[in-house]
């Protein structure tokens, strides 16, 4: 029996999420530019549009009563944002801000990289891709909050607790989105206070949904835009701690607890960033092309904290936050064929603008949002049918640092499939040659196609003590998640699969959404789902299931992540 999760695909088709508008014309809500996602890409787009509208009020007028609207599925901008984050400020400056004016945890003072073993930490010189001089430490959630305020000041209307459920398409052109229903029960029936979704139509729609963006995936399939290589992801799980004394500089580690042998494909490492004097964030990032059915990134993070040097950093401290999110790591070759479709633009993590070797993506998201605004605005200014003229966006991105940076590191992630040491050597060679070392494009395999193996990995996870180490349900609580239980299940997944696949899902999910049900007697088991635990990290979509947006307002309520 195959143990590739990809052989047990979820009941999902993009077609289900594409529709013509169904509301009567006078009930449709019309806006000028519709942005899906109040993250760095979407907010940068809104801010830039605000600037352009001020310079050209006549175009602003043409955009109607609500020139720029942003729909956000979280309770407010920042609720679903999570990153390290050490941010390259160049894109914020191009947006017109002085990074000193933005609430942050200051510039990076110092940095160190360690290779860990069970008991020791060997300091190594930071690889060229990991030099953070000139970068600033932010909480992405707080940055989102701040950018949201600037976007509103510029005239954008943010609509929180609103999910974008379906893409409105007519005659091959994107007209906007249909928002999700509210007040449905677990069976999908409307309860007393149910509020159906609305058709939200716009002249241009910008999808800035972040990793595993729902409509982004739908649109890429609908318009046949998937890139040369399949997208692959890392899963990042992190915690925020209040500590007596934060470390002075940013720290990255490699090695333990991840295993270095090629057969396990455990690519990743950890980060520890100071947040002021008395807080820090610690996180584990692991590629989802791993093969061990017992790998649980949540628990590997718990294991990491038991390292004597790390436990020391946390001693006397208290965990005050937790979260998880996937990061697209396919790089250059996984970018879509085009970044636009009729009436539509794609920005940010949703289409994989992330530089994994540098662990950076926020500034690409912001820059792409800014460029999307300029293209959209130019098209609207010309009064041209936006359908025809959005390709200026692709051109702008190609000529930007987004393209240059991603091209430089185009093969780096793929080499790590060959194990840490071989991979590390190749990656260094690539960096030193500034990307000129060309090993020929290496094939990436989708994460869900990795065959599974078992190696008793779970034996090394610490038993949660509630002080240094925690169990998944406590972590879900620490994410602020209080999702309404009695709503439809938003996770699409095959419910009867081989035991190994089910166990892989159980361990994969940092929020304990999946559970083994009953054994089928033929090596299969059923899979139980507890959707209200979900923090919408997106890992399941990478490994054989499919995340769709739950009722708006559901999910984590991040504040410091």
């Amino acid at each position, binding site marked *: 029996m195959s143990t590739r999760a990809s052989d047990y695909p979820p009941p999902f088709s993009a077609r289900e999420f594409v529709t013509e508008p169904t509301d009567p014309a006078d009930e449709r*809500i019309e806006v000028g530019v519709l942005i899906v996602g109040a993250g760095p890409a979407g907010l940068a787009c809104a801010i830039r549009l605000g600037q352009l509208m001020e310079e050209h009020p006549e175009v602003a007028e043409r955009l109607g009563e*609500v020139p720029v*609207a942003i729909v956000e599925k979280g*309770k*407010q901008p920042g*609720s679903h944002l999570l990153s390290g984050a050490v941010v390259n400020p160049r894109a914020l400056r191009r947006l017109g801000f002085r990074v000193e004016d933005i609430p942050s945890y200051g510039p990076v003072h110092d940095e160190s990289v360690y290779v860990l073993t069970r008991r020791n930490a060997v300091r190594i010189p930071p690889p060229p891709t990991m030099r953070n001089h000139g970068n600033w430490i932010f909480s992405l959630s707080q940055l989102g909050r701040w950018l949201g305020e600037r976007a509103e000041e510029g005239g954008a*209307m943010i*609509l929180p607790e*609103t999910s974008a459920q379906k893409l409105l398409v007519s005659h091959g052109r994107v007209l906007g989105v249909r*928002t999700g229903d*509210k*007040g449905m029960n677990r069976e999908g029936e409307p*309860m*007393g*206070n*149910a*509020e159906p*979704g*609305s058709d*939200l139509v716009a002249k241009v729609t910008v999808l800035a949904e972040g990793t595993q963006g729902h409509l982004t995936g739908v649109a890429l399939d609908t318009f046949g835009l998937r890139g040369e290589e399949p997208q692959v992801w890392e899963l990042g799980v992190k915690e925020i701690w209040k500590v007596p004394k934060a470390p002075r500089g940013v720290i990255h580690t490699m090695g333990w607890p991840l295993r270095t042998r090629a057969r396990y494909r455990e690519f990743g490492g950890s980060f520890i960033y100071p947040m002021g004097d008395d807080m820090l964030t610690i996180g584990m990032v692991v590629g989802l092309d791993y093969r061990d059915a017992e790998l649980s990134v949540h628990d590997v993070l718990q294991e990491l904290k038991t390292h004597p040097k790390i436990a020391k950093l946390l001693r006397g401290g208290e965990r005050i936050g937790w979260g998880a999110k996937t990061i697209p790591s396919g790089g250059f070759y996984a970018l879509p064929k085009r970044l636009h479709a009729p009436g539509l633009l794609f920005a940010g993590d949703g289409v994989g603008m992330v530089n994994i070797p540098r662990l950076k993506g926020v500034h690409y998201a912001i820059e792409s949002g800014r460029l999307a605004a300029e293209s959209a605005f130019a098209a609207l200014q010309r009064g041209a049918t936006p359908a025809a003229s959005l390709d200026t966006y692709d051109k702008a991105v190609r000529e930007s640092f987004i393209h240059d940076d991603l091209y430089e590191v185009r093969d780096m992630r793929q080499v790590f499939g060959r194990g840490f040491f071989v991979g590390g050597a190749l990656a260094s060679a690539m960096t030193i040659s500034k990307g000129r070392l060309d090993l020929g494009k290496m094939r990436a395999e989708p994460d869900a196609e990795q065959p599974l193996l078992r190696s008793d990995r779970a034996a090394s996870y610490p038993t949660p003590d509630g002080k240094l180490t925690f169990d998944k349900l406590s972590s879900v*609580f*620490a994410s*602020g998640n*209080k999702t309404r239980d009695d709503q439809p299940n938003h996770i699409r997944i095959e419910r009867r699969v081989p035991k190994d696949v089910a166990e892989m899902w159980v361990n994969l999910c940092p929020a304990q959404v999946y559970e083994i049900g009953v054994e089928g007697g033929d090596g299969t088991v059923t899979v139980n789902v507890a959707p209200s635990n979900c923090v919408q990290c997106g890992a399941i979509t990478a490994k054989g299931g499919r995340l769709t947006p739950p009722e708006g307002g559901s999910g984590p*309520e991040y*504040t410091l992540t």
Partner: protein
Amino acid sequence: MKIAVCVKHVPEGNAKIDPSTKRLDRAGEGALNHFDANAVEEALRVKGDSDTEVVVVSLGPARAADSLRKALAMGADRAVLISDEAAAGSDLVATSKLLAAALEKESADLVLFGQQASDSDGAVLWAAVAERLRRPVVSQAAELSVAEGSLKVKRQTEFGYDVIESPLPAVVAVSDAINEPRYPSLKGIMGAKKKPFDTLSLADIGVDAGDAGEPGSKTEVLGLSDPPSRGDARKIEDDGNAAQAILDFLAEKRLV
């Protein structure tokens, strides 16, 4: 007819106490107190399609505007925020004075409250406000109907239900059993930004700074202490007699 609904912006999520001020750390994210959402919903139900005006009133810092906007998005017509630094730290006596002053100006036929504030469980503001307004008050309303200058309430008590009638104007505190608050529609959320929103200072409502905030409060927070531990927590293994052991324990605690 005019209905005024008093709402509160409360901290969300896992609130903490700020050890330096000994108050609830209100710096975090906030939201409309969900019990007040019941009150807003009830006002909207009473209003129905009529031209009754529903005005939402809140006392709080500037960011309390978020909760007022949510009420406007649900369908309220107008919002009033009493926001003044001198009002920070007002206790029940001071808060009731401020709210009553604002409500006097509104002269509403019906003033609604939610049954408690989730950040200070057991709040009893409505009766204090009703006293200052010299109006009849009915609390724990599980059902409310309004007609021709009077109201009828089914009030939930420990013993069952009382049916209470009163002429208007009156003050009513609704229980969370009374309704299921509606979700704001997208049109509602967008329309909320255009609805009238007034921010008033103490001077605007005619209250002296000495009657508000800490100077105007008659109670104070002295500090924090630990609750008594649960005492000897006992853990036993069943050796066949667990049922008897449990019964003895319950008897000892006078629970059977």
